[in-house]
């Protein structure tokens, strides 16, 4: 009974973290893209709340500030608009499958969030009982392999979305997307396999613990310092997996209308959008856990109490937010690849590089 309550609380918190990160990514996408493109972006909704009452006016100041920053426009107005829009299903396709496609696009991402720890272990004493809590919803034995499984399942949402739209452009977009996703899953998997070999474990929590010491007294043993090539490969393959520019041909707005989610409007489109940004947050989280030491502040050992876990969580979220912002800034900076360049990169450059990295890590692990 206790474990059920703890599991429920953990699931609720991790889901909120995932939603919060996805919302943050949506906001940075809107406002950050505006600033990069030398325009102002959304700053009207909620910026003009005024009240005659001076106390209420003072309390409305943060609302006005959020409005000017575009947060109210992105998180409130867009959500309400999507919820209230007419939901249509194109003619000639199955109603059930059209509604199933956004579900299949979003579900793997949130399940993968269940496998990732968001804070270090801590022990807490409640009602006389001492609980040792690991903030990871499901510490399965197969650890990071489940993340691969979910990356494989996310192809289905795309394929089904293109098929159920009864639209040649959508089908083209989904074919491109699924070919791209399948190709880059290989490089992704092999980059992670190198990390698995280096840390000798599949469990993500153990991988984070394995980074919390200093090499030669000065450099933290983070994954990026120990395995820079694996980080580069994982970053590139992750951006291709989430179909972000420069790998963004599937949703290429100037070529295919909107790619595989052309015929989706309202809440279904928002689900696709949310799934994509949650996937960006997921990859940022995995990168922060595997390559940047997770919740580790170099040289500081956090105590295993609840506020130590909170500090660790804050450090982890800082790293994740920085990595999310990096991915979004890259989107608005680089032009997109042509499809044959994309496939070339995936099969002829990233795959041999990740294989070479794997062989190198295995040899070093045995030799040293």
């Amino acid at each position, binding site marked *: 009974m206790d474990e059920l309550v703890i599991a429920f609380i953990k699931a609720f918190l991790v889901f909120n973290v995932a939603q919060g990160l996805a919302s943050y990514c949506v906001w940075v996408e809107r406002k950050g893209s505006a600033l990069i493109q030398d325009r102002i972006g959304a700053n009207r909704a909620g910026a003009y709340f005024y009240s005659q009452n001076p106390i209420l006016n003072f309390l409305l100041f943060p609302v006005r500030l959020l409005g000017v920053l575009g947060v109210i426009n992105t998180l409130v107005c867009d959500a309400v608009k999507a919820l209230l829009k007419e939901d249509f299903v194109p003619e000639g396709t*199955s109603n059930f*499958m059209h509604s*199933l496609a956004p579900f299949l696009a979003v579900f793997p991402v949130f399940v993968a969030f269940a496998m990732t720890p968001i804070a270090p272990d801590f022990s807490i004493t409640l009602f006389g009982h001492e609980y040792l809590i690991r903030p990871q919803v499901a510490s*399965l*034995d*197969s*650890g990071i*392999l*489940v993340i*691969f*499984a979910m*990356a*494989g*399942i996310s*192809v*289905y949402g795309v*394929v*089904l979305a293109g*098929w159920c739209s009864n639209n040649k452009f959508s*089908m083209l977009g989904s074919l491109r997307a*699924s070919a791209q996703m*399948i190709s880059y899953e290989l490089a992704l998997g092999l980059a992670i396999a190198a990390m698995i070999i280096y840390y000798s474990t*599949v469990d993500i929590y153990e991988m984070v613990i394995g980074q919390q010491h200093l090499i030669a007294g000065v450099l933290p043993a983070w994954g990026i310092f120990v395995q820079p090539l694996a980080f580069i490969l994982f970053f590139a393959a992750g951006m291709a997996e989430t179909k972000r520019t420069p790998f963004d041909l599937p949703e290429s707005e100037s070529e295919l209308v909107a790619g595989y989610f052309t015929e989706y409007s309202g809440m279904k489109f928002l689900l696709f959008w949310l799934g994509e940004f949650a996937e960006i947050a997921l990859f940022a989280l995995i990168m922060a856990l595997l390559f940047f030491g997770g919740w580790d502040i170099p040289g500081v050992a956090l105590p295993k109490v609840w506020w130590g876990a909170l500090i660790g969580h804050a450090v982890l979220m800082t790293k994740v937010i920085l990595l999310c912002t990096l991915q979004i800034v890259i989107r608005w900076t680089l032009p997109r690849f*042509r499809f*044959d360049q994309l496939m070339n990169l995936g099969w002829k450059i990233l795959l041999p590089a990740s294989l070479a990295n794997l062989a190198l890590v295995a040899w070093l692990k045995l030799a040293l």
Partner: protein
Amino acid sequence: MNFAFSILAILLVATALGVVTSRNLVHSALCLILNLFLVAGTFALLDAHFLAAAQVIVYAGAIMVLVLFVIMLLGLRPSPLRPSLVTIVSSVVVGLLFLNEVAPLLLRVFQGVDVVGLGGEGTVRAVGQLLYTKYVFTFEAASLVIMTGIVGAVVLAKRKAGSALSSEASNGTS
């Protein structure tokens, strides 16, 4: 444990029936994907965690994508409403043969079974140790077979030098 297994078993049978009886081919494929997911769940229930993850990664995540592509791109027609006599007779014969194989297992199930895990032998570490010590030759031979398949697929799909398609491709792209 038995309760979880009974739910999984009911859903497994229901999705398998969905694969065979649905009119729309894409619905069949989706039911099969769900079926493979549930099989992975059964593996996890038996403590074979690595096998569960591998089932989803390989079967439900890669092979079924291929099957879905074939269904979507080849535009296969669903079967006609009234099956012919040959279809009925052959399906009855095959069904009886299958029942002949499965009947002893069914009788054994009705005598009462319990779901019991592998006890630590299905974890990633245990499978890895077995795979690289006792079955290493089989493992390497299997990887060679897969490599042959990949190379064969590339050779079959490669455009021959000098054909019309390849010259158009090399002129069109840089």
